[in-house]
């Protein structure tokens, strides 16, 4: 969820800040939380089973293969977008002299290693990394809001546009941050029981994150014309903060550190889910007695990333991302349907 601040989502919403961006936040939150609730409720019928197992048990094989392939593809794209924007940011801000291949190669090495871990370990690693980074995130958020040069007037200008109706892209973008639950389709294998009590807290948290995502850059760079000039709104916002008495003066570096950690976590989760989905469709490939299907898939991911990085420009990428996001909510509802079918079949069998 927190990754949201750092990826391409804000750019979509930022483009629409004067035309309905604000309203997209509550609408998106409601839709997102609603989907999350339905989803988790459905999954609680299948303890310890991931999506492939559910589909295998209760639906026909063809449905399973096609649907899982589609899902694996969608998840792969989610991770891919994050990875590509992350490589761009690294190249622009941290080491502009390094060749693209080296940067991508390094990250891909790390990520391919991390997605091959067993699911439980991925969970542990995620937990640990997020815990370690939490104080920095809080630091940046607090510093942003209480800065002397933060212009509350511009924020109020943003708020005056609350009457406008948001576009579908904006709503989808706002919903995206709640989509963490969708990763459950694989991680459910490790969960015993899903706790639905804290859902309202998640919604509150999500609204707050979305607000900060929008308000931060606007307050620092201006609502009307300022903020749309920046390619990476949040990074420039982080650069505008200064810790006179801190260890590093430019907050930008802390922010980039954070960004790196969380992006890697996010990409790991997405690609791990994608890989597990693909693994459940394809037959096992044995080489010297070990199942190397995982390695093959990881290598395929890496190859596709290289191709993508080589052949798309930033604008291209942006429009692809936009269409991907537009398709998110319908895809989620479709998944609800399928799960409903599975539940009905399960109840019939019992």
């Amino acid at each position: 969820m927190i990754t949201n601040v750092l990826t391409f989502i804000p750019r979509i919403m930022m483009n629409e800040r004067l035309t309905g961006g604000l309203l997209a936040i509550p609408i998106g939150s409601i839709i997102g939380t609603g989907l999350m609730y339905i989803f988790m409720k459905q999954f609680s019928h299948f303890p310890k089973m991931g999506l492939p197992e559910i589909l295998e048990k209760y639906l026909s094989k063809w449905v399973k293969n096609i649907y899982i392939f589609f899902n694996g593809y969608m998840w792969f794209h989610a991770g891919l977008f994050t990875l590509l924007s992350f490589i761009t940011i690294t190249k622009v801000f941290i080491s502009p002299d390094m060749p693209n291949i080296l940067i991508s190669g390094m990250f891909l090495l790390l990520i391919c290693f991390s997605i091959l871990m067993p699911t439980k370990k991925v969970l542990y690693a995620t937990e640990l990394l997020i815990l370690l980074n939490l104080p920095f995130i809080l630091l940046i958020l607090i510093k942003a809001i209480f800065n002397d040069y933060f212009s509350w007037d511009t924020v109020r200008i943003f708020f005056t546009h609350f009457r406008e109706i948001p576009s579908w892209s904006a709503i989808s973008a706002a919903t995206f941050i709640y989509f963490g639950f969708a990763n459950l389709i694989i991680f459910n294998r490790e969960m015993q029981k899903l706790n639905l009590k804290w859902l309202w807290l998640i919604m509150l948290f999500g609204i707050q994150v979305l607000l900060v995502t929008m308000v931060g850059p606007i307050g620092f760079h201006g609502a009307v014309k300022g903020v749309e000039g920046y390619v990476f709104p949040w990074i420039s916002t982080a650069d505008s903060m200064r810790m006179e008495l801190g260890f590093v003066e430019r907050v930008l570096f802390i922010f980039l550190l954070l960004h790196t950690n969380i992006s890697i976590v996010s990409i790991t989760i997405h690609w791990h889910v994608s890989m597990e989905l693909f693994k459940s469709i394809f037959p096992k490939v044995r080489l010297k007695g070990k199942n190397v299907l995982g390695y093959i898939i990881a290598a395929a991911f890496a190859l596709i990333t290289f191709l993508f990085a080589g052949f798309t420009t930033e604008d291209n990428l942006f429009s692809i991302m936009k269409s991907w996001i537009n398709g998110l909510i319908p895809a989620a509802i479709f998944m609800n349907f399928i799960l409903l079918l599975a539940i009905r079949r399960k109840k019939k069998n019992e």
Partner: protein
Amino acid sequence: MNRKWCLIPIILAVVLISGCGFKDIDKRFFAVSIGVDKGEKEKYKVSLELAVPSGDPKQPGDSIILSEEADSIAAAIGIIKSKADKELDLGHMKVIILGKDIAKENLFTTVDWFTRRRDIQEIAWVSISDSMASDILNFHPKSEYIPSNSLLFLFGNEGTETPYVISEYLFSFWRDLVEPGIDPVLPIIKLNKNENTLEVQRSGVIRDKQLAVVLDRNDTMLLNLFIKQKVKSEINVKAKNYDFTIASSNAKVKYKINTKGSTPIIDIFVNLKGNLEEKHREQQRVNLNSYEKITNKEYKKKFEKLLTKLQKAKADPIGFGQRYEATHLGDEKVKIEEWKRLYPQAKFKLHVTTKIDGTGIIK
């Protein structure tokens, strides 16, 4: 065995490609400040102040100034690079000085280079110089260890905290420049050759991307009260029977724009808090209440004068335009046009309240 062999080509590849971007710190020149003037032959004259590191940390550092003229700032920097023997590193550049003559031209295109580059900090201080920017760069007071540190301390709050300096970061300068509802204010540095000091006491208001109004020392202090609101300043009151100074520690300014009537009225509430610092008339008693009343009256006059001066020049550094946009609904362009029409007719209604907490150690 298989996995080991896969590792070797990777390591080889990685090691061979390595060294990209590897540049030791002692092979870099750190640029600490930059000055942009109007060039005689070309469009810009760019001067860079480079810090020369000294091996002994106890000795003050030295610096070199390199200047070059070109049609664009980027080109000038490129030529300067060839003059320096080490790689230029702009990551530590924290002071940007714009010459007065270049400030009178389109600042938007001038500052474009600064905001576009990723390695220039958004928290660099921007200022205007009264004369040529290169003169200011050439000046080094005795007390600074690192070149142009004195300017840094002056602008930031690490050194002196003075109300005569309105400091602007690069990002807030850019924001105010681009946003239609507010105009940026930059401090003006003057090199006092007789006393060998740098004076930063005046400020310039930028309107329509050019330097429009230059405010003198007192006006700068007043404007600082408006914009920064937490400024420690000395409030001088000279009236018929009264002559004293208050050191203010806190100032709160709130304003509301009222557009219901035919002419817009801006209600401004100023709340000053301070201690009596100096008294010049020998009086038996100090009546704080009457002091406060007379301060209110005097300052009301001063504020109004400043605000009408700005209004006549069609400059809006306080951000009334933004406040108008923030409190009204509608399309932005329409709002801006509306405000442009309304602002020259606006009337200012000031309500100043002062609270004098104490009188120092003596009564």
